[in-house]
Structure formats: C-alpha cells, structure tokens
C-alpha cells in the first residue's frame, strides 16, 4: 500500500501483519491508496527483526550489528534506516512488525518532514487552529500543554489544523497532516466530558485514576505509572470534532510559543511579545530536540561508516532559511509563559484577549 501525505509526499508500506501495520493503517486510514501519487520518498519494509539481549548498545535507543546502525524500542524490536540515501534517492526503512507504534510514529513523522524540506516546506511542532478567522500556531516543547489548549479552543468552535505537527510551506501556508490526536492521561482528565466520544470504556478508568491521584487508594508510583500508561488514546479529529477540520490555511496570523514559566510560576500564565529571531531559534531547537533519536542514530552511523549524507548535513541550514523566511512575515509573535498544564483556561482567555 501507499501513503499519500497531502498529495505531495508518498511512501510505500509492505510486509508482515503486526502492531506496525495496524498502527499505520489506523493513523493514515484516509491516505492509503493502491497507487503512489508521485515519486516514492521511502519504502517501509515490515519484517521480523529483534534481538534479545542486545550485545553492544552504543547509546539507547541506538546500537549496531552486522547489518549496520539500528534504533530499538524497549522490547528490543528493531528499526533500520538507510541514512546514505535520505533526501537523495528513494530509500528503505526496515522495521520489525511489532516495533513500538508510538516510536515509529515519531520516526515516520521525521522522515516525512525531511521529504518536505527538500520541497521547501517543514514540520513545526505545535498545535494550530483557526479561530475568529485567524490562523494561530502554538509551538511548544513536549508536555507544556498544547493539546489541552487546542481542545479548549476546539470546544469554542475553532477549526483544527494540528495537534502535534503541522506543515508550513515557504510562503507561510499551513497544512493539516494526516495524524490522530494523541491524548494522554492529563488530556483525558481535563477533558473528561469528551470521554463518551473518545472511548466510553475509559470513563471508569479516568474516574478511578482521578481518585488515585488524590491518594484515595494509596497506590505506589509504579502502579500510578501503569495507570498513566493505560490512559492514552489516539483519535482522529473527524471522530472527535466532526466538521471542524481545516485542511489548509494560507497564512499565519499569530504565533504563541508556549514555554514553561520557571521564573515566577506563582504569577500564573502570562504573555510577552517576541521577535522573529528568537522565535526561529526556539522553534528550530524544539524540532531538533524532538528528533534526538534520529539524530543520534545518524551521528553514530557517521562514526561507524566515516561517511556523511550531504542532504542531512545541510538540513539545519535549510531549516533555518525556511523558518526565517516564513516567520519574518508574521507580525504577531508572542511567548506564553505557562506555569503548569492546568493553566489552559487562563491561557485561552489571554490569547482571545489579544486576537480580538
């Protein structure tokens, strides 16, 4: 099968049934075709490839064996990438059929981003939506609260563009990517009125977890972690907020970069003005941080083979050029200082105050 990403990038998926195939079919369900839309960027070959125990771990989650560098998950399932061809030619990603779906999601997103960079577009790690006819991007490092903020705006009728990653082209156009919202325990707790639509089976678990959080059952931290890990759900936007998906927006009106307020958390959430240079650096660093497993694997590949991939070597420079070009045309750049994940309502009100 072929996955067409907004009719611009295409990759193939072939191989054995398992968690990976199941995940890809669910994640990209409306983007699966029998024929490729265009040139294939990469092939995902699903095989059986695992090692237990690993003999020589370089730096988790990266190691190597006779076939070269690989990335492994916590169950020692393996994924291999042909680094030499990325951005230059069609290349292969070979992955164990039961490789961790959350992990392969991250890797696939990065590979898709790379394919777009060679077409003058890039991924931005943000939630984004259209509200009062304004296109709003909220980039953030992980776990700062972008999903909760997005959900709060969707409940107010905003149109959805992205939860985690959106695609931005060199003219500043923002596109929604085929990707489910990834709801974690704190999203489910704060938005429990949505549980019926998300998965009604989660309702008793959320109720139980809420009480456990208050210390009612005297659970140990590892037991709490088990519950947290059970409390997650991926869901398509059209299943959660039907009719609120917007595929594309021509330009960005506001950027609210969410950062953890470590200076004065007691003050609550507040917003300050920012500038293009700072915004570019911060957004690029977020992207690089999110790509750490991939970058580690590529660097170790260089250490093993003594060779570089010219496209990947130029990536940071290309990204910097693209982001600068796009964000210098955005006149409303702000930074939101977030004390914790429970500040969603305050942030929403502050943002609404600014855009209206």
């Amino acid at each position, binding site marked *: 099968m072929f996955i067409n990403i907004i009719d611009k990038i295409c990759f193939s998926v072939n191989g054995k049934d398992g968690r990976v195939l199941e995940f890809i079919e669910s994640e990209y369900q409306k983007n699966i075709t029998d024929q490729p839309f265009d040139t294939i960027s990469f092939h995902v070959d699903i095989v059986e490839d695992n090692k237990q125990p690993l003999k020589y771990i370089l730096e988790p989650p990266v190691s190597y064996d006779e076939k070269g560098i690989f990335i492994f998950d916590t169950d020692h399932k393996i994924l291999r990438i042909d680094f030499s061809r990325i951005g230059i030619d069609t290349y292969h990603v070979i992955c164990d059929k039961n490789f961790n779906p959350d992990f392969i999601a991250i890797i696939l997103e990065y590979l898709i981003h790379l394919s777009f960079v060679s077409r003058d577009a890039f991924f931005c790690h943000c939630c984004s939506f259209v509200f009062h006819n304004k296109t709003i991007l909220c980039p953030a*490092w992980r776990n700062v609260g972008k999903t909760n903020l997005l959900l709060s705006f969707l409940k107010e009728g905003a149109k959805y563009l992205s939860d985690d990653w959106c695609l931005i082209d060199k003219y500043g156009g923002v596109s929604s990517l085929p990707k489910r919202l990834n709801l974690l325990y704190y999203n489910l707790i704060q938005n429990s009125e949505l549980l019926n639509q998300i998965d009604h089976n989660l309702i008793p678990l959320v109720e139980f977890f809420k009480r456990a959080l208050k210390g009612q059952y005297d659970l140990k931290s590892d037991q709490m972690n088990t519950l947290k890990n059970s409390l997650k759900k991926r869901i398509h936007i059209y299943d959660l907020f039907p009719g609120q998906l917007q595929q594309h927006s021509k330009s960005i009106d506001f950027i609210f970069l969410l*950062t953890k307020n470590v200076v004065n*958390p007691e003050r609550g959430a507040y917003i300050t003005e920012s*500038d293009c240079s700072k*915004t570019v650096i911060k957004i690029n660093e977020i992207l*690089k*941080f999110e790509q750490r497993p991939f970058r580690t694997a590529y*660097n170790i590949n260089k*250490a093993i083979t003594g*060779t570089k991939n010219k496209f990947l070597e130029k990536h940071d420079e290309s990204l910097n050029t693209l982001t600068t070009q796009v964000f210098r045309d955005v006149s409303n750049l702000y930074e939101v200082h977030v004390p914790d994940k429970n500040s969603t309502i305050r942030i929403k009100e502050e943002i609404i105050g600014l855009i209206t």
Partner: protein
Amino acid sequence: MSIILLNLNNLVIIEIIDPPSNIMHFLENEYYYLTKQKNTSINPDVRITFKSDLEVIASAVIVSSPVGYDYQGVFFFDRLNRIARIDFSNFSKSTTEIIVDINFNPRFLSIIIEYLLSNKLLAKDGCFCHASAIKYKSKVLLFPAWRHVGKTNLLLSFLEDGARVIADDGVFIFKDGTILPYSKCIHLLYYNFKEFPKLMDQVDISTLSLFEFVSNARQGIYNIDKGFIEDLQKKITRRFSFSDVSKIQHLPQEEKIDYVFYLRKRNTRDINSLKIKLVFPPYDELAIKATETCAYEQTYFYLAYQTFCFITGTRIDLLDNSKNKVECIHNNVFKNTIKSGELVFDNFIEHKKAKQLIKNFLIKN
C-alpha cells in the same frame, strides 16, 4: 580566598575560586597545570565558583538527564540533584561563569571542565580528542576510539613493553599536529583489571571482593541474572594516577603526533577478513569517525547549549560551528602524521595481538 588556576599552556585558563576540600583534593589528583594564586587573574576563560544548597528545585524543567533549566538558566545536575550552572552568554568573547554546588559530584565537575577546555580551545585551533596516547620508541602514537572499544587495555599493554603514557581517556589535539595531555589519571574498569590483574594489588578490599565475586558470577557459578551481574560490574571503576600504573615518569608537554591508529571494534560485517586488521581509509573518513566519537563524548554539553538556545532565543557562532571545526582539526592532524590508519579488532582480549600488529607496522615503516 583560595584561587586555583588550571592553566593549559596559556591557551585556556580556568579560575577555580574557593573549592571545597574534597573537590580541591580531586582536582589536585586529576590535573596537571594546577597552580595556587593569591590574586584573581585578569581575564580567565572560565571562572568556577561554589555555593551551598544549589539543587534542582520543583519548578525546574528537566530537559533530559543530566540537563535542566530553572529561573536562573541552564544547569547540569548529578545523581543527588546537586547542580552546576553554566552561562553560555558571550561564550566566545568573555569569561564563562560556572556556579557549582559545594557537594556537586567531583568527577562530573571534571567532565564539565573537559567540555569547557575543549570548546574554549576551538578558538585556538585545538579541540578534545577521545583517545589514549603513548610515546613508544620515541614515536608518539594516538589511539582515538569510541568508548569501551579497548583503548585503555591497548595502552596498558604497551606500557608493559616500556611505552610512556601520555593520556588515557582524552587529549587535546591541535591543527598543527601537536598533542597536549591534561589529566594525570587513568580510568580503569572491570575489563582492565581482568586483563591486567596486577592492578588489583592497588585497589581497596571492597573493590577486590566485588571483582572476585563478579568474575565468578560471570562464569555462572552463582546462577545469578546477567543484568544484575552487569550492574555490579559497572561498579568496578577506579581512577589511578599514571604513576600507579607506570614506573616511567610522565611530564605533560606538547608533543608532535607521529602515528594515529583509530580503534574500531570489529563487527560481524568483517567476519570474512582476518581477525585483526590494520587498514588505511582516506583521512577524511577517519576524521569523520573521530569527530563523531568526540562529539558523542560531549553530548551533554551540546544538550545544555541547545537548552540555552531554546530559553534565550540566542545562538553562539563558535558553538554552532564547533563540529565542523573539530572535524577540520582532526583532518589536518591525520593528514600530517607519518601515517594514520584504522585498527579493527574484536573486544578487549585482543590487545596483545593488536599491540603486536602495531609494533610490526612500526618496524616496517
């Protein structure tokens, strides 16, 4: 006020003010180039000061262990959550201030000092190289390697044949092909003691007891889980001064590198070739390998710098271009030796064969 200077040949000067006694003791054992001063020097490249109760606070953001940030900026933290703050502002232009908790882990502090020396040296065409180095029959041999590939065993093996140790775990190399050691210690692990059991004469009784237990456990005598044995094995780690492992006295001085042998662990891709081999790939390939090896050793430093970029929205050109610069220095060094090659061998027990291969090569060349 007690002021200690770590002066690396006037290329980089680190001023350490009022270090706690345990850290002072550690630094004295660890470094050459230390002197006591009465007055503050005018413009050190780095100034390290100490404070009490510097620890990770509840509102701090842990980026990824051991790096975080709080309302005062970026910090490293040790296993007891004690912190060492680093201010990257004007890193290439003025004194970099490091503020360290008085109970911060001394070994981790020495690693931070290594990061700083390396990156401050970039402006002087020098950089850190993750390598051991020896002087053997009046020739200086450099052995860059990824960690745990066997460079310490090879070094210890050469010492048995009368080589003089220059450095164990890292050196500074310069574009003109010279080398400068900085630490006077050698870091020994289980595999080093296993191959050179005489070294056990110098360890304390608890390490000796642990070593004997692990050695037996590895043979399956106690039927203990492998993961548990490996965890215990990691605890067998000692830093010795060079004088403890070699009778030949070492003086830190600039030396010209004559030969480079990049050590690579043989993998099954090499299965059809000889067990040990000495090959001579192009210099630029070796430079890429050695650069990535060094960059890997400084992962935490670059994570801290990345965090600084994120929280301030500013960048430092010197640090942005550091990898290119490091590669350029390695390239120059490897090109200007008598010969630079790659020694491919398997695990830690082939050090004697590896040594013999190098000795044979040196005789022929």
